[in-house]
């Protein structure tokens, strides 16, 4: 399935498609009260912290607008900006590789690791390497990938899946983490308690030997600066610094949308990201490197630039702003649907509101037709987004694309999802409160106050985004009646 003839992320590799459709997986998640309690507690904490630190910034709205504009400008000039990045990285002693999709990226990284003779790598938490299923590809080649971010370690040792893009083990509480460490961490003290500092200490001891002996590290990238060839990693624990500094060979995989034009653009994103992501004025560590530096850090640096459905996303003018995402997770933390079902139900490494708009575009909506419906359109995600991605409008647009691609077969799923979201009065009113708060914070354009039935029950008390060209009822009526039509 393509959009304007652009290939999407291939099937059978990586983690963009779930085992069950969203409504089915969500219903299963709803029965897990421990999960809901863990996620509710964590998102509540982060929402409060984020709100306080955003309120500290008198120029927050101006920063958001600048962030949005820098991303839009970059995409509009993407070919020249990517070529400039390649030139600068190469001039600084790095090697740039291009990968059309997950399969190609995995093959490139695998052969780079094999060339070193190493049979293990240390990894920095990276969404993109999860998206392409890199660990599985490396394992198939006999290479062990050690996740070094604390939350990723919890997920890896627990044979689990990440459920949040910033805090992948958000669905686990401290007692569950202690149990996972006791069970699966080699050499862990048997009397380990669930005291967070003690859990952190256990990870420190366990990983230190790996850091000091690893010869190859694999990372993603938060930003890459075209003007200078500088790559940026934002982190907390120091595991990123270990991976970026100690091994001889560093391989960084990044989506082509992570490039930004100038070093000065970082002044916007380094203010937006930490406050939005973890509710901190600044995260403990940010590393920036340009190619290789003699006597300091890796001797070899490889940068893999990945498409995997990004150009297909770029081809849709009403969907491409999803590529502006800086992966802060704020939209997940404010989303009443995410809070209720957790990250796994989305079936993709990108859950929550951003997942509902980016995943179907990377895979083609035909492969994830339910995700655009995994939302109440309450608008909280737009208000929280540091780069002002209008997720609600995009969801409505993608619903139309999903209906066009799937035809009548989607009908049941749509009503199933809506009925399901409507079933909790408490969630309802929480969403409404959030949306009201959102309206106080910012004036909205392009909004309508009522949607036709059945969504009218949702919109009586708040605004919903204006569907781009047709009303919801119109596109619902005008949807193709034959499955497979359109797209």
């Amino acid at each position, binding site marked *: 399935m393509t959009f304007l003839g652009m290939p999407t992320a291939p099937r059978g590799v990586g983690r963009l498609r779930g085992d069950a459709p969203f409504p089915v997986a969500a219903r299963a998640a709803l029965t897990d009260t421990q999960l809901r309690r863990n996620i509710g507690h964590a998102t509540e904490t982060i929402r409060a912290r984020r709100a306080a630190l955003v309120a500290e910034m008198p120029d927050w709205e101006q920063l958001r607008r600048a962030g949005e504009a820098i991303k839009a400008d970059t995409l509009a000039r993407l070919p020249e900006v990517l070529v400039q990045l390649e030139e600068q990285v190469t001039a600084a002693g790095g090697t740039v590789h291009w990968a059309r999709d997950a399969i190609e990226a995995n093959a490139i990284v695998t052969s780079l690791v094999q060339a070193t003779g190493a049979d293990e790598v240390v990894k920095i938490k990276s969404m993109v390497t999860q998206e392409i299923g890199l660990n599985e590809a490396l394992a198939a080649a006999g290479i062990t990938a050690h996740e070094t971010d604390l939350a990723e370690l919890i997920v890896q040792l627990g044979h689990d899946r990440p459920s949040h893009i910033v805090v992948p083990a958000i669905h686990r509480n401290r007692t569950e983490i202690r149990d996972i460490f006791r069970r699966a961490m080699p050499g862990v003290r048997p009397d380990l308690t669930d005291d967070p500092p003690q859990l952190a200490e256990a990870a420190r001891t366990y990983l230190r030997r790996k850091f000091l002996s690893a010869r190859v590290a694999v990372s993603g990238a938060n930003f890459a600066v075209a003007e200078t060839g500088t790559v940026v990693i934002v982190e907390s624990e120091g595991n990123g610094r270990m991976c970026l500094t100690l091994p001889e060979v560093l391989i960084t995989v990044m989506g082509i949308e992570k490039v930004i034009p100038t070093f000065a653009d970082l002044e916007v994103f380094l203010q937006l990201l930490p406050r939005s992501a973890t509710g901190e004025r600044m995260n*403990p560590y940010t590393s920036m490197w340009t190619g290789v530096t003699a006597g300091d850090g890796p001797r070899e640096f490889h940068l893999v630039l990945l498409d995997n459905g990004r150009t297909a996303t770029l081809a849709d003018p009403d969907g491409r702003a999803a590529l502006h995402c800086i992966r802060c997770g704020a939209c997940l933390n404010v989303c009443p649907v995410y809070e209720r079902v957790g990250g796994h139900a989305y079936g993709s490494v990108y859950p929550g509101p951003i997942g509902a708009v980016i995943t179907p575009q990377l895979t083609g909506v035909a492969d994830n037709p339910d995700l655009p419906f995994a939302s109440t359109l309450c608008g909280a995600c737009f208000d929280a987004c540091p780069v002002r991605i209008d997720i609600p409008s995009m969801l409505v647009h993608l619903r139309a694309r999903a209906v066009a691609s799937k035809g009548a077969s989607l009908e049941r799923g749509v009503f199933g999802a809506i009925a399901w979201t409507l079933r909790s009065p408490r969630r309802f009113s929480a969403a409404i409160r959030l949306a009201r708060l959102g309206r106080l914070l910012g004036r909205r354009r392009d909004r309508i106050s009522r949607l036709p039935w059945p969504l009218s029950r949702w919109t009586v008390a708040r605004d919903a985004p204006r569907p781009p060209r047709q009303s919801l009822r119109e596109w619902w009526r005008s949807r193709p009646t034959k499955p497979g039509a359109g797209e």
Partner: protein
Amino acid sequence: MTSARDEILARVRTALGPNPAPVTVLREYRRSSTMDNVIELFEDRLRDYGATVVHVTPDGVAAAVAEQVRGRVRVAPGLPWLESGPDGPHVGGVAVEVDDGGPAAELDAVDTAVTGAAAACAVTGTIVLDGSPDQGRRALTLVPDRHVCVVHSGQIVGAVPELLARLNPRAPLTFVSGPSATADIELQRVKGVHGPRQLVVIIVADTTGQ
């Protein structure tokens, strides 16, 4: 066969269409600050992160370093307060090793690293290291558990844009905002995972920094 590079660039051009509309970036946010309490704010932010802050005058740096180091000490090769004596190098009378760029595993046996800094930012409580001789290679300030960092008052700016304007983008840069921490367990900031768990910032009240 088309290379992946050419194919991806061609896809991008097709996706954008023939004449992508140019986008203007308005930078209406604050790019400079007019604070007069920069040092106070910097200290406040650092303490909030759980760092230790010490104030000294220029002639008190060596003594302050000597007081703040613990155990086996290694310093950046170009640390200005390094002195050589008959018993080897020392700072303020405390014996130190000078980092020689040897295997990083050796650093695991070191307790304290001592460096200068490239610049600092008050609003976010951030110190930046750029690999200059007074700051050393990145591993030096990463592997040992205690980092003592000397920052001159003239190196401290108000806001993030001013900080970035002072940096050389092509140097290996490390932004440090407090000791190593994680928020991965129930989203609480817990001090200390892989980087130094103790951060001591010695602020030198002078104007010779930069």
